[in-house]
């Protein structure tokens, strides 16, 4: 079985697994305790914070550890909204966003906030001018993802950041960096982003941990209270093993980024060309997208049917993003790009990682051809 779902969860590095195991055995003390064992645990977290800060080119006190990117996104959006409601009650985001951003914004709308969901252009890329045009004097926050988790398009964050600050300097900019880190360069200063979410398990780190960068000068209203952990921003006993292992994954993925990209781009391009050559399939990803995601539709065929057929042929793939793949509804992202319901129902996402080789891609291509041929025959028979 070949695994093609790195964008949903990448297998952890061996070193990450070892770190988790050793720290769980040795450093079970509560980092908030005053005894020596507690202090040692706390020191591990301090060091992890420094390692993450170095990888992201920010200050250690700007790193906040959470339980995952979903929490990071929730805290960034609701935390900023509640903290700065004196500035206004308007948020701008896009129709492309991950559910953890999208639903947080919808929830705020139920509480009386106004939310502008900017649609991408047909390319799946948001026009910075559209974002800037949506910003008002009472806009508290703009949230835009770096790389779309379904189709892999890359958003022009630098231009978006410039546009935001040109219209309203006080509007905060949150970037959901979950699918971008480790594949594309992370430049918070250049983007003028105050908030940045990261998910270690997408970059071969542990599950159940997350990172939120909160740039100095930005305050958040805590969503979890009950202790002064993480500077009062998030109560809860720290997951020491997870935090240290996350720092390790962040560092390793950052260091290996360029090498990984060099490896993935030819593989992805080969896949793109193969799919483009199959008349039944419609490509949704682009060559200028992230190097690890290839997304296509089989209009008229439910994505999950094709996914099951491919699994039978030894290929684990995903229908769009894992977080929404159990829904039978058409993909919101594809619809927002102007694709019809047929295409939006038939999406398949292939996401690559560093284990994949040219030979693996060749096998995947064969499987894809075979799957499409057999489904087409059945489809013909059904008609």
């Amino acid at each position, binding site marked *: 079985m070949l695994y093609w779902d790195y964008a949903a969860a990448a297998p952890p590095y061996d070193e990450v697994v070892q770190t988790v195991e050793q720290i769980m055995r040795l450093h079970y003390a509560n980092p908030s305790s005053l005894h020596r064992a507690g*202090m040692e645990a706390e*020191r*591990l977290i301090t060091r992890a914070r420094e390692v993450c800060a170095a990888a992201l080119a920010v200050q250690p006190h700007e790193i906040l550890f959470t339980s995952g990117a979903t929490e990071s996104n929730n805290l960034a959006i609701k935390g900023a909204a509640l903290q700065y409601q004196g500035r206004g009650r308007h948020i701008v985001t896009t129709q492309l966003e991950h559910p953890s951003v999208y639903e947080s914004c919808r929830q705020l709308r139920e509480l009386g906030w106004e939310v502008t969901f900017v649609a991408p252009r047909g390319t799946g890329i948001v026009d910075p001018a559209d974002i800037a045009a949506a910003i008002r004097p009472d806009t508290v926050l703009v949230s835009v993802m770096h790389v779309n988790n379904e189709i892999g398009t890359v958003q022009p964050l630098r231009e978006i950041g410039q546009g935001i600050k040109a219209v309203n300097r006080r509007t905060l900019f949150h970037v959901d960096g979950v699918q971008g880190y480790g594949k594309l360069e992370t430049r918070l200063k250049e983007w003028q982003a105050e908030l940045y979410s990261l998910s270690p398990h997408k970059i071969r780190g542990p599950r159940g941990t997350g990172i939120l960068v909160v740039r100095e000068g930005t305050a958040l209203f805590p969503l979890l209270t009950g202790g002064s952990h993480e500077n009062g921003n998030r109560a809860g006993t720290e997951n020491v093993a997870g935090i240290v292992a996350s720092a390790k994954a962040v*560092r390793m993925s950052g260091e290996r980024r360029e090498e990984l990209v060099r490896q993935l781009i030819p593989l992805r391009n080969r896949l793109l060309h193969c799919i483009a050559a199959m008349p039944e399939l419609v490509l949704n990803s682009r060559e200028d997208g992230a190097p690890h995601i290839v997304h296509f539709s089989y209009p008229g065929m439910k994505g999950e049917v094709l996914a099951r057929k491919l699994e039978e042929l030894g290929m684990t793939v995903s229908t769009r993003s894992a977080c929404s793949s159990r829904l039978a509804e058409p993909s919101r992202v594809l619809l927002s790009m102007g694709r019809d319901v047929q295409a939006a129902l038939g999406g398949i996402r292939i996401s690559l990682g560093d284990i994949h080789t040219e030979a693996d891609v060749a096998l995947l291509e064969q499987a894809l051809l075979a799957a499409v041929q057999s489904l087409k025959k059945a489809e013909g028979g059904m008609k």
Partner: protein
Amino acid sequence: MLLLRFGEFTLKGKNRSRFEKTVLRHVKEMVRPFPKVSLSKEFGRIYVQLNGEPAEELAGVLRNVFGIASISPVKVSLSDFDDILSVSRNFLRIAAPPAGTTFKVNVRRVWKGFPYGSIEMNKLISTPLLQSYPGLLVDVKSPQMELKIEIREGHTYIFCENIAGVGGFPLGTNGKAMLLLSGGIDSPVAGWSSMRRGLEVECVHFYSFPYTSELARQKVVDLTRVLSRYAGVIRLHLVPFTEVQTSFTGIGQDNLIITLMRRAMLKIATRLAEREGALALVTGESLGQVASQTLSSMNVIGRVTPLPLLRPLVMMDKSEIVELSKTVGTYDLSILPYEDCCTLFVPKSPTTNPNLRIVDKIEATLPGYSALLDAAVAGTETVTITPYGDEKPSDVVPAQAGLQEEWF
């Protein structure tokens, strides 16, 4: 490029080049995180060639170098009239002063081979500049913007901003002193102030384990680390003070405990100073702040040491000290709420007016008092603190215990 000017020590005679070299060494240390920077020294100043490194960040770092009076971001042109004018134009365009800004050009012709005189140049440069920036108003007495042009052989420097540096004397050029470092707000500021006057500082901290926690000691290590950013390396002496301190609690003179304690600290610090070759003690005392800092307390306490007792903050208001500690970078650490030895065993009403004779007599009759002081000196542990290390006092937490770098 950045131009760094030296401070008051340039008035000194013979030692001047030693001072300048010390500043240069300190600057070199501070620019180490910016590998593309190159340095050159000239009489009375240092030039920092940026080569693409961020000017603002570097200026922020370098203004903390002791001995530097001011910093100016400068543009360099050839010493040629047309080039000077075009770089000045460019400079003005980047600075983009708003309309209505009062303005003046101030040319200094250091290189007398240049064909035009200073006064003549003022006019020659300002006329075309004013023509292309009609919003500027001329004011030669107190302009809001003064474009300074310094013509030297080879290069001309064009600048207008003057960022104030911390000034003072270069690191360690005025000898060595022992700083009594508690965990509070004042003593780190006193340390910084003495370092600014060119003193090399070693820190002495008194701890009373188990009455004070390991965290309190770590806090002092961290405070010393902040100071070490200004000094490169600082030695910290950790004195076990529990026995000395508890010996005062049984004598029935509660209101004198603080006086006795402070005297004991000075006695121990004096012995450490003698051992380390330091010629003064520095404290963070500020007149009237607490009972032990009334004039009469300071008199009784200060009598125990033959060394000069330096109190850089003695005449400062608390609010000024707090401001300074924020600038120095010790404030956030200082306010961490850990008990230190100075807040332990504090009597309800400490005396503000101790009697020297009574205090002397109590000390003379305390059983085994000098042996206790000897033991404290002997038990003192010394840690060398660097800006980026993570030292821990060894007997509390073994250095590096539990943290394996390969985990990260």
